[in-house]
């Protein structure tokens, strides 16, 4: 069983933000980088399937060289191979899906897993677009996966926690929701070994963009919260008063 897992190195902003000169993104000096949380669950799910059914796990990402850190994190968890695709515009999930599709076609996997969404963009679109481009069935927001013979049973988590049990033909693309498993930690030795793995680098073919950022800005703050100060005792007293007042 060969599983391709599509991952993303996400950016998080601290207290301060500056924008690039063209105003279309944040200044990279103001971001921290990490493996997208949803993708760690997708990687774990692929690794558990490999442990049960054999095969290999291939992780793929679109991004500059620095995004190899996220691939190496997955390699340290136990993925077998890693591919990085260069030359893909950020913030356009359909463009990312076009680039990923080239790798998925070449790999001819039995299963493709993506995270439901990335924490920095929250489009929840890449996996579903990818499935279309490689002409595979798909199920989005999966909280349980049981592969069988030529098909799988998947639980789709709907709003309010209602679960839609679906049967899907394989191979398929599934987008994995947090909580489906408990992602493993990589030990130090595995992290060291992952540093030595050669990552395949490919160049993306040009693809049409489905959107383009015209400008980014810090949203205007509304009234905002009334701040209760920084003394824990005072904060606690105010909270106790509010609870008493508002429930009287």
């Amino acid at each position, binding site marked *: 069983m060969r599983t391709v897992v599509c991952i993303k190195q996400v950016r*998080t*902003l601290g*207290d301060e*933000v500056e924008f690039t000169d063209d105003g279309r993104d*944040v200044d990279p000096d103001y971001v921290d980088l990490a493996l997208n949380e949803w993708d760690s669950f997708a990687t774990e799910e692929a690794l558990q399937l490999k442990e049960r059914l054999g095969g290999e796990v291939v992780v793929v990402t679109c991004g500059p060289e620095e995004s190899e850190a996220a691939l190496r994190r997955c390699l340290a968890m136990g993925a077998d191979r890693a591919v990085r695709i260069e030359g893909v515009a950020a*913030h356009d*999930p*359909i463009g990312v*899906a076009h680039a990923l599709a080239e790798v998925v076609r070449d790999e001819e996997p039995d299963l493709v897993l993506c995270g439901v969404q990335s924490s920095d*963009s*929250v*489009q*929840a*679109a*890449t996996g*579903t*677009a*990818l*499935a*279309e*481009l490689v002409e595979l069935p798909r*199920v*989005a927001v999966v909280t349980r996966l049981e592969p069988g013979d030529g098909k799988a049973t998947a639980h*789709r*988590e*709907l709003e*309010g*926690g*209602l*679960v839609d*049990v*679906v049967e*899907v*033909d394989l191979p398929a693309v599934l987008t994995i929701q*947090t*909580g489906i498993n*408990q992602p493993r930690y990589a030990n130090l030795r595995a992290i060291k070994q992952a540093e030595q793995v050669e990552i395949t680098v490919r160049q993306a073919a040009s693809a*049409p*963009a*489905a*959107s*383009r*950022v015209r*400008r980014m*800005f*810090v*949203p205007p703050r509304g009234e905002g*919260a009334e*701040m*209760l100060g*920084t003394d*824990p005792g005072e904060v*606690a007293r*105010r*909270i*106790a008063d*509010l*609870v008493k007042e*508002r*429930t009287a």
Partner: protein
Amino acid sequence: MSVLVVTEHLQGTVRDVTRELVTAGRPLGPVAVAVIARDPGPLAAAVDVEGVEEIVTVAAGADEFEGDTYQQALEALIESRRPRVVLLGFTVNAMSYAAAVAAKLGLGYASDVHGVALEGEAVIATRSFYAGKVSAELEFPGAETVLLLLRPTTWPPAEGTGGAAVSSLAVEVAPPRARHVEFTEPAATGDVDITQADVLLSIGRGIGDADAIAQFEGLAAKMGATLSVSRPIVDAGWMPASRQVGQSGKTVKPKVYLAFGISGAVQHLAGMKASGTIVAVNTDPEASIFGVAHYGAVVDLFDVAEELEKLY
């Protein structure tokens, strides 16, 4: 300029987001609403609200949502009607087919959109990036049709009666590759009902580890509050799903909502922003939770918890 809204329905009921999409679409142009179902008739009546010019029914597929059916139906609707803008809710169902339609037909696309405007002929969508700390205006160069998934509970739902004309579109759909089998509810735990509480003490990732749960259960009991949690606490297996506030958990509206160590993901805010009084305690002054909170404190939540213990 024409707008096409796709009705979202579940177990025979039209979901609120559909009427919100009508409100969002009206300033953009005449709104047509599509209803895709095995038997769309009864659902069509429920979307005949003020501002809807036309209802188009597509009798296809099963009673319940299947992504392949919706994809084929929406592709046929777009090809026959050439709308400038297609509006769907940013929901789990829409996530299951919208981006596939956009990729196949080469549409403009964006999701979790919370603002839409026209500048001449150009559609401009506003959405957030970087955990809500930054907003962006998106443009869709060269796209004849733009498909947008709008954030639920952002626009008020359209009310009243529209008296819209009803037509139907015949679409042949192939058998779906992913098929609905059944719905199951999350296992009932015989636990408390957090939607009934007057005061919720709600904890999130900021509590650090499982050992802190017992401490906050104790504090909630002393305060006469009920303990609720954000998603990461349930994902980690520290509390049952019945305690989860948010889009994939429970929508709550207590008199007082105390958010301790919750940064405020959009999905969480959707489940608690209607609470009477919201108090947020978080060490990150830029956390999104402060955007909806009435009162806030940038201070260590354990220090506040310790002081609260002394007061009760």
